[in-house]
Structures are given as C-alpha cells and as structure tokens.
C-alpha cells in the first residue's frame, strides 16, 4: 500500500512537471509576444520594457523555465523598474497588472470555487442517486420514462442557459432571491448558502443527469448478477436485496467518479462563476484574459492541472480501497 502510494505520488509529480513544461512552452514560445500579453491594458513602451526585463524574457527559454521552477520552490524577486517586487515561496508568477503575486490572487479565489463545487457535488449526488434508484427499480414506469427524458435534456442544456433562466425566474420575475453576491461561509453560513443556491442548482443539473444514468445502469447490471438470483431463491425480501446487496455494486463506480468530478467542477465552473458574478478561480481566469495578464493565466492553468492530477490519484486509491477485486500492484 505504501509502495503503491509512493509510486502514485512520483508518477503524479512527473505528470505535473511535464504539464508545466508543456504549458510554459506553449505560452512563452507562442507567436504572440509574452511581454505584451503580460503588460496589461494600459501598456506603454516604458512599461513594456520593464515587464520584459522583469520576466527575464531576453534570456533563453530553458533558463526562464528553470527560474520559474526555482520560484515555485524558493520564491523569487522581480526587478521591476526602480524597485524590486518580491514573490514568496510557492511563486507561480507575478501579475504586473494588479501588482500582486499570482499565488496570493489564487488563494483569495479558491474558497469561492471550492464552496461552489462542494455544494453542487453534494446536491447532484443526492438527486442523481435518488432518481437513479427510483427509476432503476422500475417500480414506476412513468417515472422511469420521465427520468430518461430529463437525463437526455440535461445533456442538451448548457450551464449558462440554466443559470440565465434561473436568474430570470427567481431574481427578476418572482423576486424570491436577491442577485447572488458571494458571502464567505465564516461571515454568515446562511447568507453563504442563500447566495450560492442558484449557482449550485445550475451546476448540478448536468451532473445529476449523469449520476442518475450511471446509478440506473449500475443497478440494472448488479440486479442481473448471480448472487442476487441466489439471494432471491433463498427468499430474502426484495427490499433487503436492493439495499444490502444490489446497491453496493451499483454505487461502487460512483465513489471513484466523485473525486474527479469535484475537481472537474472546481476547474470548469468558469461559466457559472461568470454568469453569477462569483469571484472564483474561473472568474480570475476570464478577468486575466480580458485584462491581458499572462502570468495569472499561466498560474491558473497550472493550479487547475495540479488539482486534476491530485483528484485522479485520489480516485485510483479510493477505487482500490472500496473495491476488494482491485489489487494494488
């Protein structure tokens, strides 16, 4: 187990290193000039020259990349104009547009993205497994059909469309809710939830459809297995078969999906955050793109990569932990 864990961590680190090299090469060897892309909207020739020397863009790319890696481990100082901008230890770059280290900008935003993702994941798991089970037992034919239709519709509905309609209905038409503004959980948990409920719902729609479909298919597969038939032959009540035996097999694949999906939502909630004006990582990225702030773009891309790699590793370990058939090599 420990050996496997170690191998997994080293493998993940290698993937991360490859990813960072790839991203660095993409952004700094692209046909556009990185200095212009990092200089911001109100760019002057003097400022451009300052940014160019500060980022060390005149040096060979490999040296630049090496300095970048050094910055992540040991921090880095950028000589900018007359002064020096310090960027402490896990330094992912320095945003000259906002005069802040990228790491600081990211740390401010991650709680928002995490709140959004966690709520949406819990909501969609509950709703998805619930509807999947109800339709999987095939007790109600019409319900089964309804779920099937909703699952298909869920696939065809972009997140921002759901968000727009929810805003239109609840904030403009019925006026039950104010327009969402982010309130930290530590300030007021109730207001936190109230402001996040619409974003949660719009994110959960698609995920719920996917979970319902998986639960339903999983239950059908698991009910068809031999040990269920044996249990039925022994006269064990159907309800007990369902809850004790079939459910276990049906929900196993979901467990591993959860970790990856949570990471997916954290990294791909860009649309929801923009739609509802939530100051998360996605909004930081879109803002940086519009403000022409390359270091932030690179930083966000790297951190989302890190989150995905960790989630994939966690999923593998979880899978081995819950499914006795999987042996760790």
């Amino acid at each position, binding site marked *: 187990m420990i050996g496997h864990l170690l191998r997994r961590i080293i493998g993940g680190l290698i*993937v991360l290193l*490859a*990813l960072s090299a790839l991203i660095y090469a*993409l*952004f700094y060897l*692209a*046909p*556009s000039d990185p200095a212009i*892309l990092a200089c911001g909207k109100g760019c002057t020739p003097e400022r451009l020259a300052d940014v160019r020397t500060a980022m060390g863009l005149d040096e060979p790319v490999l040296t630049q990349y090496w300095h970048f890696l050094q910055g992540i481990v040991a921090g880095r100082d950028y000589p900018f104009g007359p002064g020096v901008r310090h960027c402490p230890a896990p330094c992912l770059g320095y945003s000259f547009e906002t005069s802040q280290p990228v790491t600081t900008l990211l740390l401010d935003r991650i709680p928002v993205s995490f709140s959004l993702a966690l709520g949406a994941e819990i909501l969609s798991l509950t709703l998805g497994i619930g509807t999947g089970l109800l339709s999987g037992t095939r007790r109600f034919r019409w319900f089964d059909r309804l779920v*099937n239709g909703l699952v*298909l*519709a869920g*696939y*065809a*509905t*972009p*997140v*921002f*469309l759901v968000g*727009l*309609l929810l*805003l*239109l209905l609840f904030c*403009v038409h019925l006026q039950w809710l104010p327009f969402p503004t982010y309130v930290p959980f530590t300030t007021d948990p109730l207001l936190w939830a109230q402001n996040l409920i619409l974003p949660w719902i719009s994110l959960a729609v698609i995920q719920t459809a996917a979970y319902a479909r998986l639960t*339903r*298919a999983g239950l*059908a*597969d698991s009910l068809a297995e031999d040990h269920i038939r044996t249990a039925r032959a022994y006269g064990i009540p159907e309800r007990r078969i369902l809850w004790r035996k079939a459910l276990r097999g049906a929900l196993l694949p979901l467990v591993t999906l959860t970790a990856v999906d949570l990471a*997916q939502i954290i*990294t*791909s909630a*860009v*649309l929801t955050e*923009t*739609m509802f004006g939530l100051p998360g990582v*996605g909004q930081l*990225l*879109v803002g940086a*793109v*519009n403000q022409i702030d*390359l270091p932030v*773009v*690179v930083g*966000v*891309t790297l951190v*989302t*990569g890190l*989150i*995905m*790699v960790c989630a*994939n590793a966690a999923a593998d370990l979880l899978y081995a932990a819950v499914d006795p058939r999987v042996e760790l090599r």
Partner: protein
Amino acid sequence: MIRDLLRDRGFVAGAVIATGMVLVAVTAPLLAALAGQDYTTYHDTLLDSARGGVPIGAFGGISGEHWLGVEPGTGRDLFARLVYGAQVSLGVGIGATVLEVLLGVTVGVAAGLGGRWADAGLSRVIDLVLSVPSLVLAISLLAIVPQDWPRPIILAVVIAVLGWGGTARISRGETLTLRTRDYVAAAQVAGAPWWRVARREILPGLTAPILTYAALLLPTNMVVEAGLSFLGVGVRPPTPSWGQMLSTATTWFRADPAYVFLPGLLLFLTLLSFVLVANGLRRVLDPRQREVLR
C-alpha cells in the same frame, strides 16, 4: 437496422430537427437574403433610446421586416444573426468532432496495434489529455492565439486538441479486443503489413463504437463552443454565435427578456436533437445498451 432506428420516435424527431438545423446553417446567406436583412446593419430607429436601447414593439420588436425582432442596443436583425449563428455553432461542432475522431482513432489504433512500448507511451499521452482541465486550457490558449487568425477554425482545432482522449481510449480498447480475433491473427500471419491490418481488419470493427461515441461528442463540442463564445474568447464580433448572443443577453435580460429566449431555445433544441440522434444510434448499435436504456 434502419427499421429499428425509424421505430424510435425520439431518433426520428431528433434527426428531422438536426437536418433542418444543418440546412439552415448551409443556406444562411440565402435565408437572410430572403428576409431582406443582413447581420451587421444597425437600425437605431427601431430602438427606444429613452429606455436604454430596448427594441420598440412587442416581443423584441417583431415586424414584417424583422421576422424575429432586433437586437437590443444595436438594432441588428435577429433572424439574420440567428441563422448565421447556426453556421458557427454547427460548423465548429462538426469540425471539432471530425478532427477528434481522426486524431483519436489514429492514436488509439496505433497504441492497440503497436508493441508494448508504443502502447505504454501512447497510453500515458492519452491519460494526460484526459486529465487536463480542458475548459481552462481552451480559454488560455484562445487568449494567446493572434487575433487575426481565422477564429472558427482555431476554435475547432483547440476544442479537438483538448478533447480527443475519449475517442483514443475507446479505439485502443476495441483494437486490443479485435486483435485477438482469429481473422486479424490470420491476416498478420499471412504477412499483411500493419497498415493494411489496421485499415482492412481493425477499422471496420471500430465503426459502430466510434460512431456511437462521436454522435454524443458533437453536441458536447457545440456546448463547449457556445460556452467559449459566451465567455468572449470564441468568434469575434460582428460574426454572430448563439453563445455570444446569450452573453449579450445577460446584460439585457431585465429589460428585454425576449432576447434571451430565442438564442437559448435554438441552442437547446439543436443540442437536444443531436442528443436524441446519438441516443437512437446507441440503442441500435450497442446491443448491450438496448435493455438498459429502454
């Protein structure tokens, strides 16, 4: 098989709407000319400047001249913008899907047929593509691409480059199964070169699973395009796209709700029709799914 498909009401409805949308996209210039409108002309006189530029008249200013009304703020003809928007949505979606299938099948079959090292190396690449945060990377890439490059093509390429992992994984898996079959082994023993084995023995067996998968990829790619255009990194104005129109609608939905519904409804209907087609195809082509999906 075709009879099975035609018995599926969802598939038929989806196929009809999807075909209609493709026709609309192809004949967009013709349709706009028929309406006597184009998608760039501003009509200031049709806007109520006292209310911030909302179209005059009911339902976004519908009239004999402007069949679906005009855009708030600019007064551009909505019908023309919507039919041209279909071009971007479908063009980018189909283009990206075709590229993904080409790339994915090539890599997948190469991994499945190649030796141990080729398979190990390519599988790692596939894993990497699958675990990359694609939406974030797409936004970042589109931000650094020079602005004068042809935007729809760039969009399709970026979506495809970040999204071929699934196709590759399925192709690899199917190839690994197929190569254990006797007829493939026979071809190999008879001395057929690897490319002939791939083309004559493996590819026909891949058609059904790849077709089912690609059918669902198409609407997914269209959603991605709409999302990217919604975020402002998609096609450049004045080229219209449904996603971009929806993003404009976010600033107008209090004053002019009609403007949200038209692009939204079109996008939803088009996506739903393609999902229904994909669902029908899967039912027929994948016998395992038949019972489960009923």
